[in-house]
């Protein structure tokens, strides 16, 4: 092999080596880029799931609250009805008692 050929072989090898490193750097950049996109996608997916779960929790609580409130009001209505009936039965006695207070001679 002549001196010129030897130099050419070495230059080719260095070119090939430079390309290898260049390719590796491009691949590394692609890996970083892929992971950014993957993380972003994963984030959106997980947060969307969490948001849906949150909406379900709130909706369920709202429905439970409505049921409890309705039940409470139903019971309270019955209790009030009974209170009104009891009070109505005591009205005449109360009138007499108040009248006595009002007309009593001190």
């Amino acid at each position: 092999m002549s001196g010129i050929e030897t130099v050419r072989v070495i230059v080719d090898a260095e070119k090939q080596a430079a390309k290898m490193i260049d390719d590796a750097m491009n691949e590394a950049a692609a890996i970083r880029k892929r992971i950014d996109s993957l993380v972003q996608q994963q984030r959106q997916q997980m947060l969307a799931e969490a948001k849906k779960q949150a909406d379900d929790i709130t909706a369920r609580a709202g429905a439970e609250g409505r049921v409890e409130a309705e039940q409470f009001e139903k019971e309270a209505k019955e209790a009030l009805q009974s209170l009104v009936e009891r009070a109505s039965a005591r009205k005449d006695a109360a009138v007499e008692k108040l009248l006595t207070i009002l007309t009593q001679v001190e």
Partner: protein
Amino acid sequence: MAETDKFTEDILKTAREKAESIIRDAQTETQHASDEAKISITREAEAIVRNAHADADAVKRRQISEARHRTKLREQQEKDKIVEEVLGQVRKRTSELAADEARYIPMLTHLIESGVKELREKTAVIHVNKADLERMSSLTQRVGKSLGSVRVEWAKEPIQAMGGAIVSNVDGTIRIDNTLDQKFEALQPKLLIGARASLFSEMNPTRDPFE
């Protein structure tokens, strides 16, 4: 030749190792970033769910609290209605008292006499309503027995009242209001409390709420 080959092989080997290291570093770095991102996203998602639980509790509590409030308001309105009915009935019965002379005349006499005593004047002017003015002659006989030297005059103009009397001095600058209307107004807070206790007492309905 062999030396050149070895030299180029070394160049390529070094480059290969360097390339592998670059990719490995990128993979390690991205794996690390991915793990960190996952932890952070998980925390974020957990916070959303945790907040939802807190919101849910608040929503539930608010609905029940609003129901309680509505119920309380309705109960209060019903109670007020009944108390108003009772007080209205008491007012009506008070205005009808005058028809029951056996009960009313001693009371009217007492109201007039206590007014005169409170006035502490030599002459007292008695103001009564139209119906009582018509009973003036029988009232005059009853009133005055316990008044000593106080001179009693009857105002000719009737007052607007359910019953009772206003006792004034001659020039009308001092007035003792002993009408049933005034008594009703003055006793109203007590009557209200009494009516509520009498109507709505749960503890012991037979207990006298005025005592």
